């Protein structure tokens, strides 16, 4: 025991010599991470934590695997409310306003002191910072981020007489391609759908792709106003509804998010929209050549970003907050970001990561991995407001009502907007 303490002490002393700025004694930071216990990703995070500890012997990182994003924020906020929060957590970027309103997090700006720090904060893809900043302050640091892309089955394209290497580039092409790719059978069922855009659980996210392409944002930057009833929004929803009702190239009703990749593997859907986070899954399970493309353009191209940011807890002791900040900087260095991208399929959060040898090689071997990066120039902030989940649900309900045919797109969006207004007025 004594020997161990002694060794630790010398190691700390060594670190002190190497980096004179570190002068604190041993600090432990707890780190909520949104993945279920076990699985390959927990092993990666464990490795990162221990490598970080090797570089920073005075800091102990204790990762806690907290389940899905939803379960992680439940755990984090429950702990926050009872006064015992984790030092840092990876939570959805869209939870920013909720976390601010609960005074659960502290701005990252508080830790930015040197020019080096400032350069680091500017090193991320601007699209990812849209969901990390509001009112001039930065609240989250991008970590595992994604966008929506279109996956297509090259075999089925060939079968339908389409060029297997050319994905649809516009809304109109998307419809005509899908028409060629749809095989309807006798009783209104289809043995193969041309296109499939999932709509269970969080339809707003996929819909935001359509709305962006139709040329509108869904909310303002302050997160206290939504534009659900704009003409462009209704137009986007009408396009989605028409895919199934008018053109009959898309399943009717609500399409399950979880089964969509499987539908693709089973050749029941020739084109699907889903997250870049599915890249590895599709690569491992598709028994046919497939392509990955940016979402087709309406008036413009567009997709929301998605995924999680690092946050630092307001209630944590200052020494722990500093240590957490250090961990964040360490794990978002270009080399780590590149490695993370290769290991998981998430988009590396900073452009210079794509210049590292590891990521260069990966992109050469698997060009699809670069599609998400290239789409980032068209990306917009994911829908995020005060009382985010409630305002988002207002939109989800409207979308599902229109997709199941219980309301017209106009009516559905009018109702969603009214509900969002009711919730948001007090934040103005």
């Amino acid at each position, binding site marked *: 025991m004594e020997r161990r303490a002694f060794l630790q002490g010398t190691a700390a002393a060594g670190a002190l010599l190497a980096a004179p700025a570190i002068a604190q004694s041993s600090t432990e930071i707890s780190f909520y991470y949104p993945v279920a216990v076990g699985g390959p990703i927990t092993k990666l995070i464990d490795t990162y934590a221990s490598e970080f500890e090797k570089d920073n012997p005075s800091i102990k990182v204790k990762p806690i695997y907290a389940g899905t994003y939803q379960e992680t924020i439940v755990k984090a906020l429950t702990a926050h409310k009872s006064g015992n929060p984790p030092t840092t957590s990876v939570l959805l970027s869209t939870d920013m306003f909720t976390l601010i309103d609960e005074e659960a997090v502290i701005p990252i700006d508080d830790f930015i002191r040197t020019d080096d720090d400032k350069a680091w904060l500017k090193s991320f893809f601007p699209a990812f910072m849209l969901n990390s900043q509001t009112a001039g302050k930065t609240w989250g640091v991008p970590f595992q981020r994604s966008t929506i892309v279109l996956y297509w089955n090259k075999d089925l394209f060939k079968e339908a007489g389409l060029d297997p290497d050319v994905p649809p580039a516009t809304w109109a092409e998307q419809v005509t391609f899908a028409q060629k790719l749809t095989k309807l059978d006798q009783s209104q069922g289809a043995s193969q759908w041309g296109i499939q855009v999932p709509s269970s659980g969080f339809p707003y996210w996929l819909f935001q792709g359509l709305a962006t392409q139709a040329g509108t944002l869904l909310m303002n930057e302050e997160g206290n106003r939504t534009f659900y009833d704009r003409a462009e929004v209704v137009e986007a929803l009408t396009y989605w509804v028409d895919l199934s009702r008018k053109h009959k190239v898309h399943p009717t009703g609500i399409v399950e998010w979880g089964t969509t*990749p*499987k539908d693709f593997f089973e050749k029941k859907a020739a084109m699907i929209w889903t997250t870049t986070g599915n890249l590895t899954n599709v690569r491992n*399970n598709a028994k046919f050549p497939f392509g990955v493309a940016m979402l087709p353009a309406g008036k413009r191209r567009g997709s929301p970003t998605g995924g999680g940011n690092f946050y630092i807890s307001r209630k944590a002791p200052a020494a722990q907050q500093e240590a957490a900040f250090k961990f964040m900087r360490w794990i978002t260095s270009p080399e780590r970001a590149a490695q993370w991208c290769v290991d998981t399929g998430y988009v590396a959060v900073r452009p210079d990561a794509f210049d590292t040898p590891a990521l260069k090689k990966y992109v050469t071997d698997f060009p699809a991995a670069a599609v998400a990066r290239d789409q980032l120039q068209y990306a917009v902030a994911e829908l995020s407001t005060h009382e985010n989940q409630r305002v988002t649900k207002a939109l989800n309900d409207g979308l599902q009502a229109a997709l199941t045919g219980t309301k017209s797109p106009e009516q559905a969006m009018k109702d969603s907007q009214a509900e969002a207004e009711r919730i948001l007025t007090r934040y103005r």
Partner: protein
Amino acid sequence: MSMRAASEAYAPTGASRLLETVAAWMLAGLWILPLLYALWTAFHPGEYSARFEVLAPVTLDNFSRAWSAAPFARYFLNTFVLVTLVLSGQLVLCTLAAYAFARSDFRGSNIAFALVLIQLMIMPDVLIVQNYKTMNMLGMLDSIPAIALPYVASAFGIFLLRQTFKTVPQELDEAARIEGAGAVQTLLRVYVPLAKPVYLAYGLVSVSYHWNNFLWPLIVTNSVESRPLTVGLQVFASTDQGIDWSIICAATLMTSAPLLIAFLLFQRQFVQSFMRVGIR
């Protein structure tokens, strides 16, 4: 079988018996379908999870993937400890409380009983935030007792046992006491044996509930050392990246196998022990 069931006199014969057998088998087939599907999918590669061909290759790959995805051995142990802790705590506490309610007329007994009954309708699932605060105050977060404690004093158990104890004839109680038994001995010698079927029934409810309980354990635990099986299973249940049925089915079989096999082996004893102590 020494004891014949009452319905035997009415046991169907001939065509009606055939009809009943066929109907029972059809319903059984329907009921076991998810298990059959799990068996099929767990032992075949992923591309056969929606295609049922006789010649599909057989593999154990899904099991090794599932087993390595989380420390399941430890989770098994944790669940076992948890279920044992909850059930033994429930049995002791509920027996004592039920005895007090059933056999003594004391001041405040009605209020006390009402206070117990309140828990019948209050599901601990909706009191999570408050209970988390309490556990934090007690410094018990992230431990197996923390998962167990809110469930140990079970109104359902107290209620059931009280009803049962009330049906025990007063004479038996008095006879035991005349023979010199103290209250604890009377409780153990007279009441507990007579309530055996109720203990079994209640034990079954309790074990199956806590074996499968999910939300509260997830919230209150952080580490592998305290998390139960369901939290481990959840690795595969998250659908963010699409559902992988092969691995879900392998994991489901793996975690349920002990219970399934135990039931298969002991189901006769299990059902009989329900009836052994009954109407004579």
